[in-house]
């Protein structure tokens, strides 16, 4: 073989390799799950449990038992910070509990989940092990998908052949990548591109004209929360809830909110701010905070004079989203007191 020919072959082989790296992602890239839908489908959001060494697991399990019993969910979404300075035993303890409820659960990471005596890959492997945890819908993100984060995936709520809703879970990452000041991470462009691909594909060339209605769950609030908080005008409707701490969130969503508006996102819910539980509808999209589950680390308390129930109460419990056939959603917050003696509900939508 002559030298130029060899060079040409080598170049083609290299080009082939490069192009292989650019192959567009398949529809789901292995990051979607289907779940059977029915009218009044209930999604229970638990968030910020902060399981750690000193956690009274018996108490927390009874606490969650009560929330499960009150809400009878079809799906449980855990929006991060389930663990903080935990160990493998704590992880197994929580997962065994969730599994025992025989309700499917989806999990996205918060900024504290990797702060434990285990590696991120270990946690992902455990969560995505169908033999041990068949009800876990967690999808381990394949590094070849080239999407930043480890817990970006979609749950399709399917009725017959049709996808009625899509539940998107986004990984808002563990921490920022500042040199000294780590701060909170911003969403990555690759995540927004991934969302666009997923929503485009699920609509499909012969699919419905409009985008499939979707709900987002993630941990750290995106900047739209701050914008909505600061905005005063006709584009915002306050739906209810409390703001007892200053909002701490990321500063750049790489255009996610804008894309979500265009692509029929009905609502997005986060965790992170334990003492904020308010819900607003801003520019047509509902933005809400989940109610912190359990007492670990800190939680908000509403004083008697600000309470509609005639006595003070803890901002602790869970939130329940109900999805209807005609793209209508309803949202109820459950405030279960620390001693589990009182339970108040607050309807937001």
């Amino acid at each position, binding site marked *: 073989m002559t030298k130029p020919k060899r060079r040409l072959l080598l170049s083609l082989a290299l080009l082939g390799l490069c192009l292989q790296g650019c192959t567009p992602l398949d529809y789901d890239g292995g990051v979607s799950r289907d779940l059977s839908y029915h009218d009044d489908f209930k999604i229970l959001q638990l968030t910020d449990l*902060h399981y*750690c*060494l*000193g*956690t009274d697991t018996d108490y927390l399990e009874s606490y969650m038992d009560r929330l499960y019993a009150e809400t009878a969910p079809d799906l449980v979404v855990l929006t991060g910070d389930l663990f*903080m*300075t935990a*160990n*493998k*035993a*704590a992880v*197994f*303890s929580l997962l065994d509990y969730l599994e025992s409820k025989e309700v499917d659960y989806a999990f996205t990471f918060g*900024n*504290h989940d*990797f*702060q*434990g*005596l*285990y*590696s*991120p*890959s*270990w946690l992902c*492997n455990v969560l995505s092990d169908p033999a041990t945890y068949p009800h876990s819908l967690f999808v381990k993100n394949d*590094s070849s998908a080239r999407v*930043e984060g*480890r817990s970006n995936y979609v749950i399709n709520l399917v009725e017959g052949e049709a996808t009625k809703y899509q539940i998107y879970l986004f990984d808002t*990452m*563990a*921490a*920022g*990548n*500042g*040199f*000294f*000041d*780590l*701060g*909170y*991470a911003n969403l990555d462009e690759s995540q927004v591109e991934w969302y666009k691909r997923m929503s485009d594909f699920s609509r499909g060339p012969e699919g419905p004209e409009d985008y499939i209605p979707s709900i987002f769950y993630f941990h750290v609030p995106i900047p739209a929360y701050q914008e909505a908080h600061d905005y005063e005008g006709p584009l915002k409707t306050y739906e209810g809830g409390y703001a007892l701490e200053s909002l701490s969130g990321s500063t750049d969503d790489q255009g996610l909110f804008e894309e979500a508006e265009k692509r029929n996102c009905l609502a997005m819910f986060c965790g992170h701010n334990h003492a904020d539980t308010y819900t607003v509808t801003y520019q047509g999209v509902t933005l809400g905070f989940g109610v912190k589950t359990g*007492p*670990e*680390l*800190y*939680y908000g308390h509403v004083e008697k004079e600000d309470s509609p129930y005639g006595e003070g109460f803890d901002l602790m419990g869970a939130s329940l989203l109900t999805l209807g056939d005609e793209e209508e959603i309803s949202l109820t917050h459950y405030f279960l007191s620390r001693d589990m003696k009182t339970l108040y509900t607050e309807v937001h939508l």
Partner: protein
Amino acid sequence: MKKRGSLLIVEAVLYVFAAVGVFYFVYLLGNVIGSLTSYADWFQHFPYLLPLVLCSGLPVYLLFAFHAYRHSLTPKGAAHGAIANGLVGVVLAAFALIYAFVLLYNGTYEIGTNYPTAFFPIDVIVYLLLEEFAFLALYLLGVWTLRRPKFFEPLPTLTKGLRGLYGTLLGGAALLALYAFGGVLFSFGFGFSDENPAILISFYLLCLILTAGLFLYECDLVYGFKANSKKISFYSYLGLSVFVLVFFYAARYRDPMGFVEITMPFLVVDYMTSLALFPALADIFLIASNVCFGLKAFPRVREGA
């Protein structure tokens, strides 16, 4: 020389136990903060955690007490220090041990709860028993030294100014090095699999190079490196330090989020404060260690100055 060498080996063994202790101690502090809803909660958790805190903290005390014995200037000073520290340690370890048994008896500690390890609370009790014997041994070493002062071989003394400088710089470096070394030991159980290997290796190297520096410093004191060997060890350590720092920052620059993911299980304080404290402190102490080695390797530069 042989005795000094043997004592250095003993200190190296204690160093490993102390490293595990320091890392776990910081992890426990993180837990206390993590479960802190109110002061009432803290007091509720405190009895549960106290034996664990003592169990992880006492090996560090033992290491520093033994180090102080080795570095004492006179046999009498060494003996008195060892006796006092040995007694305090024996009392604290006994207290923690009895307390752990009480908590086990009243049901606060339950066998099979898997906290903090799968062997809990047997692991805590065995560790405390070992500490009890180790402090007893330190006490007996003090008594032995008092009776046979010739047993004690003082290490070469440094000038007063240098002693203070080295003590401060390397003492700080030692705490950080212990924490980092403990993290590396713990990390073998973390189950790393598909994390970025370049970041993992560079981070391990950064953790271990601090311990290597301390070991080199102690070897020089015990075995008395010749002038030429001092220079070689200085240049080797300097070269290794530069390599590790460049490797670490290059890997971090290439994959900043990978750095975050890998270091999260190690750097409890950093991610609670949202500040990359460990890399900054490691840089400072690495530079400090090199300055110390440089001053020892080139005494004439110091005299000229």
